[in-house]
């Protein structure tokens, strides 16, 4: 019901945005928090999604390693990820549920293990993405937004972690396109105020009616390491069962 209501609201917002001439739309001073929530809604708009991802880990010297994963997501707060390749991580599974409940399945130990929120800011399987990044994304719940600037194409927001949230970064700077409310670039600043990571979403287009980036790249400026994530076999709103987001499914080999 909550999902249905938020989709209705999103639909109304989209209709209103499209109905307003661009000049009138710009005339309304943007509420940064609302813009952020809107971006969340766009990212998480599909009722559910399945996609295969190729994670290309690029070393400073240009050498590459590749991981392949399959991801299932339902709504904006449940996600299952399974590794397909390479062999040393094959069948490892990760389940992210609401309220920071996360499980990891390690085939070698034949066990699904509950993992605590301390891993959220750690590297996910050697990539430049964290467990937090690989979980579901709802920036508006975790960050307070301020408008840093407004370019002809983007709202640029400064995001500060809300009190009580455990984040490794002191601040995020996010570029959200005005036309689609799709976040295309995020800069991550450490506690010393230094820029440490940049995430870019590229090749953004509508797939089955939903804005989707076919490529996402995370660049760690400290290590000069990059992870490029390429999407394929994307499928939206296929009516995924809740059973796909359980420990039972996590350890099931497909």
């Amino acid at each position: 019901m909550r999902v249905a209501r938020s989709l209705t609201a999103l639909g109304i917002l989209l209709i209103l945005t499209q109905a307003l001439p661009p000049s009138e739309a710009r005339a309304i001073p943007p509420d940064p928090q609302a813009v952020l929530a809107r971006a969340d809604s766009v990212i998480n708009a599909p009722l559910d999604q399945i996609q295969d991802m190729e994670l290309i880990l690029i070393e400073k010297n240009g050498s590459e390693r590749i991981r392949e994963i399959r991801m299932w997501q339902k709504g904006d707060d449940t996600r299952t990820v399974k590794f397909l390749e390479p062999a040393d991580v094959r069948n490892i599974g990760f389940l992210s549920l609401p309220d920071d409940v996360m499980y990891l399945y390690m085939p070698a130990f034949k066990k699904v293990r509950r993992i605590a929120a301390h891993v959220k800011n750690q590297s996910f399987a050697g990539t430049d993405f964290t467990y937090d990044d690989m979980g579901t994304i709802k920036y508006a719940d975790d960050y307070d937004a301020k408008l840093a600037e407004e370019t002809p194409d983007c709202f640029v927001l400064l995001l500060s972690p809300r009190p009580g949230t455990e984040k490794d970064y002191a601040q995020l700077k996010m570029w959200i396109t005005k036309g689609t409310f799709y976040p295309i670039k995020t800069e991550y600043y450490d506690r010393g105020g230094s820029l440490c990571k940049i995430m870019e979403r590229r090749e953004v287009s509508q797939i089955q009616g939903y804005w989707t980036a076919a490529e996402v790249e995370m660049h760690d400026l400290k290590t000069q390491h990059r992870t490029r994530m390429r999407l394929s076999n994307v499928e939206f709103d296929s009516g995924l069962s809740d059973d796909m987001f359980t420990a039972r499914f996590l350890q099931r080999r497909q």
Partner: protein
Amino acid sequence: MGTKAALLCFLVGLAAPSVSAQGQIGGHVLTDWRARLDDGKVLWNENRLELEIDASPTSKAHLFAQFWIRGFGVSEAATTQDLMGLDKRKSNPWDLLPREAYVDLYGFFTPDLDLRIGRQRIAWGTADKINPTDNLNPDDLEDIWDFGRHLGTSSVLAQYYRGDVTISAVFTPGFTPATLPPADWAAALSTPLALPGGVEAGKLSDELDMPVNTLRETASVAVKIARPVLNYDLSLSYLTGRSDFPVPIRVVLTPVDSNSVDVHSTLVYPRMSVLGADLSGAIRTVGVWAEIAVFFPEAVYTTLDMSALELGQQEIVSLPDEHFARYVVGGDYTFAGGLYINAQFIHGFAHELGRDCLHNYVVAGLEKKLRNDTIQITVAGAVEIPDSAHPGDNYAIIGMPEIAYYPSDNSEITCGVRVIGEKGQTSFGQLAEMDEGYIVFRYAF
């Protein structure tokens, strides 16, 4: 052995056409070398091919099998005949071990029920590697440093899912004893023999009095119910079966000369029931877990036969029929820089039977990954304290620093040392002269 190898080839060949479409063959190649630090004695020489066959012929069925084909140990050739024979095991020891082979049937009878039938590993418990409630499969202590390794057993596992509740039931018809470490390490798991004053042990021998091969004697049954409660995952379990570690029921002393006796022991596997509980969750962002198993053993009375020494017979209680509890409490945390810490307090190790035999252990480890996870440094250690009232009198301290390098996908090179310091009488202290260095190469495919 030739027949076994042929069978394995047949299985792989049989599976190959179908796995290409619906599953896969994988596994790893591993080489594990260990040598004693003080004199360079080769303690371990293992070269293993782990082969996994994985197939899902339909969405409702899944097949899995895991085999180890390995060369192990050093040449045992004693005569030239050993080198000439067709069977090369003495000059080149190797074996084939079926670790698991089972079928999963998903949504069996009802969509909420999954069955797993066949030789399988059923891992219960939420603690890290040392799990008091993990008693469905016998311990595989061949490698004493591979904590938590168990053998597969031929079992039926039924798992029923209803909402966030999972009910598991296991039936294992046969009894399988734990495997024990090779002689160099076996001392850690054995109790020192108490002989009459001035008498020394000569030749030691034993025999296992295995349970009679009937379901009543060999079968084990277990159930578990698990569900989340207040942001913690909880489970309760019950098992009735047998201890996988033997207890002496008869010890016969036979004089060899005026100072020494040969000792022959008969060992049995006592029945016991185990009531278990575990939880896992978090306190703020720190991962926490706790696990307890209360054992209810049948009593084992040991007859000490010293008739040949003209000292008659004595009966002592080796395992009283009083319950005892093993438990683990632990937690883990990752600091902002990526330093991971894991610590556990353990009361009672797998081989410790009886309330008076349980030692305390504190195990902790620090892990740090470097260079985009291509290097991992681990500094782990453990302290064994048999008697909490006098920790300074008896203790063992184990240090296990290790470095792992991942030069490319699927490959891993690990090296490290295990060193032990001790005082008094402890389990791991008996390995104090076995300080070792090791290097392991592993490639997954």
